[in-house]
């Protein structure tokens, strides 16, 4: 394979990471928590889409919509029952709870669907664009375009709508936002809903790349996407997008030119180097404590 086709594969994987990272970064920005269960929401989305496509025989779009609905409800429910009672608790307690939720989802999935891997059906048509000897599959194009569309929509939503500005206010200072008459709880729920819905989209795109569905499928992409969000500057939407894309590209290129087994190590090493040079990530803003 040529460098260009590796690059395109990297963009495809990176787009999936970026979509997950967008959910991560929004939740972190608003709720100031590392939602380690986010990866497992992806897993639930993947199983939903799998059953929708195989057992119910639904085509692509309805299957994705169903997965989005399930994940959104799940995400909002997790926030309502596990995280909301901990608003005033230490961030460590919230982190441990998120880990508990992650275990819960993984083990529930294992009980319900066993740990036997299931092969995700191909929901996209198998064709490809031919561009001067380079073949780019439809699903690659769809993945990249979906990611860009989502990013643009989120930017417009956050910057141009009333709800979006309420979100930004909550991200800045929840107490002050509440004083301004913003319903903080509703905004947090909405953030989880959006993040989880995006996770569902990501799950279908991820499973089109790696078509095995298992209860632990979300763990590694979850950690990678979190890394991507930090890489780009956590809390920043364009940062998550950029971080996701770069991470995917680095992973694929490192696997192709250095070693597949070491590609994860290289990805994380790059993260550490970036953080050392730019502690707030690529597009994050620096905050200074007032003395």
């Amino acid at each position, binding site marked *: 394979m040529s460098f260009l086709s590796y690059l395109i594969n990297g963009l495809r994987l990176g787009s999936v990471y970026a979509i997950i990272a967008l959910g991560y970064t929004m939740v972190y920005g608003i709720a100031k928590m590392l939602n380690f269960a986010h990866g497992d929401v992806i897993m639930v989305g993947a199983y939903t889409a799998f059953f929708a496509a195989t057992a119910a025989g639904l085509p692509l779009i309805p299957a994705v919509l169903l997965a989005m609905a399930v994940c959104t409800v799940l995400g909002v429910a997790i926030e309502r029952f596990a995280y909301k*009672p*901990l608003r005033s608790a230490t961030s460590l307690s919230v982190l441990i709870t998120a880990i508990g939720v992650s275990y819960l989802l993984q083990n529930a999935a294992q009980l319900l669907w066993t740990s036997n891997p299931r092969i995700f059906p191909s929901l996209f048509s198998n064709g490809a664009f031919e561009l001067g000897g380079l073949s780019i599959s439809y699903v690659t194009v769809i993945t990249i375009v979906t990611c860009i569309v989502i990013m643009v929509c989120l930017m417009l939503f956050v910057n141009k709508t009333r709800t979006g500005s309420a979100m930004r206010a909550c991200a800045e200072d929840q107490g002050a936002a509440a004083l301004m008459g913003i319903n903080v709880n509703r905004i947090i729920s909405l953030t989880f809903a959006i993040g989880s819905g995006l996770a569902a989209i990501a799950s279908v795109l991820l499973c089109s790349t790696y078509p095995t569905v298992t209860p632990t499928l979300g763990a590694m992409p979850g950690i990678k996407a979190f890394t991507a969000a930090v890489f780009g500057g956590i809390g920043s939407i364009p940062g998550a997008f950029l971080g996701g894309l770069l991470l995917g590209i680095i992973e694929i290129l490192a696997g192709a030119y250095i070693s597949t087994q070491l590609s994860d190590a290289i990805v994380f090493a790059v993260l550490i180097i970036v953080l050392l040079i730019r502690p707030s990530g690529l597009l994050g803003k620096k905050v200074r404590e007032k003395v």
Partner: protein
Amino acid sequence: MNNKRSQIVSFSIIIILYAVLEILLKTGNLSSLFSSLLIPVCCYMAAAIGLNLNVGISGELNLGQAGFMSIGAFTGICVSGMLSGVISNGVIRLVTAMIVGMILAGVFGILIGIPTLKLSGDYLAIVTLAFGEIIKSLVTNLYLGMDSRGLHFSFVQNKVSLEPGGKMLLNGAMGATGTERIASFTAGVILVLICLAFVYNLMDSGSGRAIMAARDNRIAASSIGIDVTRTKMLAFVVSAGMAGAAGALYGLSFSTLEPRKFDFNLSIMILVYVVLGGLGNMTGTLIATMLLVTLPQMLRGLSDFRMLIYAIVLIAMMLITNNEKVKIFIEKMRLRRKEKGAGNGEN
């Protein structure tokens, strides 16, 4: 403060449990399942005590404790393997392996700490998370063998060819195989006691106060001449060193050990012991570790449901301990006990 009392409680718990378990073990009254847990529990405790210094007392989130244990484990296994022809005494070899494991883990701690601990926020968490993954990935790709000509290693692909009589110490994803099991429960208990004494004495000293001061208020700490980065580094490196020693003991208690054993989940598991036991509370850490290691085993009868129940217990514990009403209730009980104590002329 009742610092002294909690120290006595911690030491007593360990010593009494050790005596009881040792008697049960010697009289053959301990199930093989439980006796197989003894050394790992000690290792988790030692790693958790270190992590509590780092997370609870120094206030930095560390998500890579398994990475340090991994370094300690595979270093320890290699050291023991290399010395097997030189030192026949298992105890001396074990102690040497643990010390080397501890030092190497500590050195890695310094390397990571230098750039990260200058920054405030969740950087250590992210960098240690990444570090744990990197170590797992590197060890998974490392091949190390030894024969009469010395050590041979290769990376990614096994290109190590040994003379007859040579042996492989590390075998990539398979990790260490055929390790001589020189670890013992007694060694584990001694390790836990040393770690406890170390942390308690360090906390009650100038460095301990500096660590807590840097946690409570970074700017104020600098204003009274405390070098925040250095004190955070001390807590982090001690934590890493303890994980290294614990890892070495752990590694030498199994005949085979895969590198993927030390994954993100193990780091999280140890963090859970620390948080559930109470930040900065060493006695709590010990109890939480014991309970949480044995809980899934006791739930074994429920087979498939045990991890589900574990997850639910975890969430429930966090929700209950952070519930305002429960907090007020505990505070009331504490005050009542204090009053009673004062009334009886205690304190």
